[in-house]
């Protein structure tokens, strides 16, 4: 099968798209040696600054750089405005869904989502049932993963409502581009993003009913793969970066241990999964959490951002219903499209899936991070047959989607510049208002033909520009 890819920089006729013209002119004028030298400089600067991540399963805890590509991903402002509205709409509906799910469950009663899809879901937290949250907000920080298909249409690949990461790379990539190539920013209007930490702090503060709440960032610790980001955000916001052992609960209130005695904590931006938050309520073996935290939370004495139990809304088995949620709660037509999804639990869709396995991507509903997945076009006949047996045995545990073409963007590779597949994760902040900084994190699959953009799989990042035409 011949696939056509949408390229961000060049149109079908090989002409530079208007929003890339300025950049293309600059690229043509700049000597390749200078570009190569600046790329080395970027590597050195990232290394010096220790902007790294740690790979799990690596005994040495080796810190690695995420490859940074100096060709930006550029989005025309008019196009961005649609994406932005789409992301905001989606996150609003998802927050309303969560509030509904943990209260009246109108959407289930209306027959839009089958009860067993959500109530039997592992991510559904009984402890949240009936608990009122300030502003009815559950997912304060959300990441919406977008890809573009062959004709350039944006699709939402998945929603991330637990502890979406990557925003520090978005900010550091921009800093690096401005440092290396200031002339590019002088030549055209690129929307600024540096105020993200400010907006984040504002969002976290507005998640609490208190006037000036004390905010902290809770990290699993320095060995976590995203520790750099936790420390980065705490520093940029000017708040404490705490580990579980730094906090304790007394009389259903949360305190941190300081050199000046205990100090009250009102809002916790936690970068720790639900299961590790409180050993008394969840995983008793967790050394990372704070005993008694859930009790304090249920008393309304502390805000967790994001709330407990948001995972039920970004589960792959719930994903197919998000467009319906938007219609149900907002009475609006969805601005961003879902990837068409076949639910194997439905007999007619299952037979379609089984008949078309070589063309489909099949995912486990509970899986994440690329585990338990079949990419049909990239698999052998034997792998497909093995997977077929697994689907037949447990059809309700799988969904299937057509293999998307993922747009490409020119990228520096070994021998010059070549197109590589990319995605986009804008970060949506929900507080008093719902806001998105222009752009987001663009991840790029550096291996030729690869569609996997994860940093653990050799993916890199690019600066993301929203350009005024």
């Amino acid at each position, binding site marked *: 099968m011949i696939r056509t890819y949408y390229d961000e920089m060049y149109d079908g006729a090989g002409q530079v798209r208007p929003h890339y013209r300025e950049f293309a002119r600059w690229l043509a004028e700049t000597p390749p040696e200078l570009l190569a030298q600046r790329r080395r400089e970027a590597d050195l600067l990232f290394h010096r600054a*220790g902007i790294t991540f740690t790979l799990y399963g690596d005994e040495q805890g080796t810190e690695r750089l995420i490859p940074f590509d100096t060709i930006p991903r550029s989005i025309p402002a008019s196009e961005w405005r649609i994406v932005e509205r789409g992301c905001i709409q989606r996150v609003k509906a998802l927050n309303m869904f969560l509030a509904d799910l943990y209260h009246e469950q109108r959407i289930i009663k209306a027959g839009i989502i089958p009860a067993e899809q959500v109530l039997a879901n592992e991510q559904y937290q009984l402890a949240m049932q009936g608990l009122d949250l300030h502003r009815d907000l559950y997912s304060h920080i959300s990441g919406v993963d977008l890809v573009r298909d062959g004709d350039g249409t944006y699709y939402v690949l998945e929603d991330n409502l637990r502890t979406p990461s990557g925003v520090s790379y978005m900010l550091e990539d921009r800093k690096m581009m401005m440092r290396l190539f200031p002339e590019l920013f002088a030549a055209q209007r690129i929307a600024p993003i540096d105020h993200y930490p400010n907006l984040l702090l504002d969002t976290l503060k507005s998640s609490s009913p208190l006037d000036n709440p004390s905010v902290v960032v809770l990290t699993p610790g320095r060995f976590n793969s995203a520790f750099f980001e936790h420390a980065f955000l705490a520093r940029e916001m000017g708040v404490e970066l705490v*580990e579980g052992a730094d906090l304790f609960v007394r009389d259903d209130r949360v305190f941190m241990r300081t*050199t000046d005695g205990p100090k009250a904590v009102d809002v916790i931006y936690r970068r720790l999964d639900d299961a590790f938050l409180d050993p008394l309520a969840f995983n008793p073996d967790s050394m990372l959490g704070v005993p008694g935290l859930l009790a304090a939370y249920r008393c309304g004495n502390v805000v967790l951002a994001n709330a407990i139990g948001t995972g039920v809304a970004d589960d792959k088995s719930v994903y197919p219903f998000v467009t319906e949620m938007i219609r149900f709660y907002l009475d609006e037509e969805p601005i961003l499209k879902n990837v068409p999804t076949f639910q194997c639990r439905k007999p007619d869709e299952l037979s379609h899936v089984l008949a078309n396995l070589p063309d489909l991507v099949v995912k486990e509903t509970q899986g994440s991070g690329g585990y338990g997945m079949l990419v049909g076009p990239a698999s052998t006949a034997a792998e497909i047959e093995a997977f077929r047996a697994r689907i037949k045995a447990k059809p309700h545990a799988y969904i299937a989607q057509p293999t998307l073409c993922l747009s490409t963007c020119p990228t520096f590779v070994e021998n010059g510049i070549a197109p590589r597949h990319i995605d986009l994760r804008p970060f949506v902040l929900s507080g008093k208002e719902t806001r998105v900084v222009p752009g987001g994190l663009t991840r790029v699959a550096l291996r030729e033909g690869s569609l996997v953009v994860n940093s653990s799989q050799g993916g890199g990042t690019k600066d993301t520009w929203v350009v005024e035409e």
Partner: protein
Amino acid sequence: MLSRTASDLYWMSRYLERAENLARMLDVSYSLSLMPQDGRGDGLHELAMPLLITGTLEDYHERHGQLHAERLLHFFALDAANPASIYSCLGAARASAHAVRGRITADMWENINATWLDIRDIAQQGLSRYGMSRFCEWVKERSHLFRGATYGTIMRNDAFRFIRLGTFIERADNTLRLLDARYEMAGDRAEPVTDGTAHAYYQWSALLRALSSFEAYTEIYRDAPGARQVAELLLLRADVPRSLRACSEEIDQILASLPGINGRPAQRLAAEMDARLRFTAIDEILEEGLHAWLTDFIPLVRQLGDAIYSSYLEAA
């Protein structure tokens, strides 16, 4: 400030100061080992001094057996398997900095991170290729740079105080130990303390140079270095920045300026120590015997360290 944060800041600067002091010890021993040894062996004994002072000589013997110049130097300076090596100290300092990178400035973090990346390169090259004296100079320079970045960029808050606290506790301990060791090497303790032999001269001037106090010494005493003056300079002079008195004065002031009341035990110990040094004359110390006096004082510094730990740094 979070107790754990304070603890990481404190240990960051302690380890860095320790690395610097180890390099200073190594530097002086290395240059003395190159001197004619007038019947005192082949300089190996001198090279083993830093290990003796830091209490790692046994560890060395267990792993490497006989004294061997190159192995000794590598073990002390670059051995990642030796938790007390300069390499390990810089690694520990960098790990602590990593944990609190949100609380130190970018200049400080990039500086200490670059130091760590560099020493890994040096370890790959090996000491003999890099050069012994050059290595010691490099360690001192990195420590100076970091201190400069710290003083030049960080806010004057509790973070700054805990960083300095670590530096001065470590430095006080180091000055005491170095002085004790050199006093032993300088000759028979029964000899008059104004020992003027060439051997003693080199021992004392090497010590002064190791502590960057040679210029101060000549300016104050205008005399060849001897035990009495050196001891006075390094123990009691408040205007010599690596002296015990200078350290205790800093520690006392820093502790007094920390908020809260849970630090009282540490504050009292520090004030007592500072008062004791302020109102002691060198003759009293020598009457008691320098070695005996130092042996009494070293545990006091450790006690103070423990009190700081339980007052401020204990996280759980």
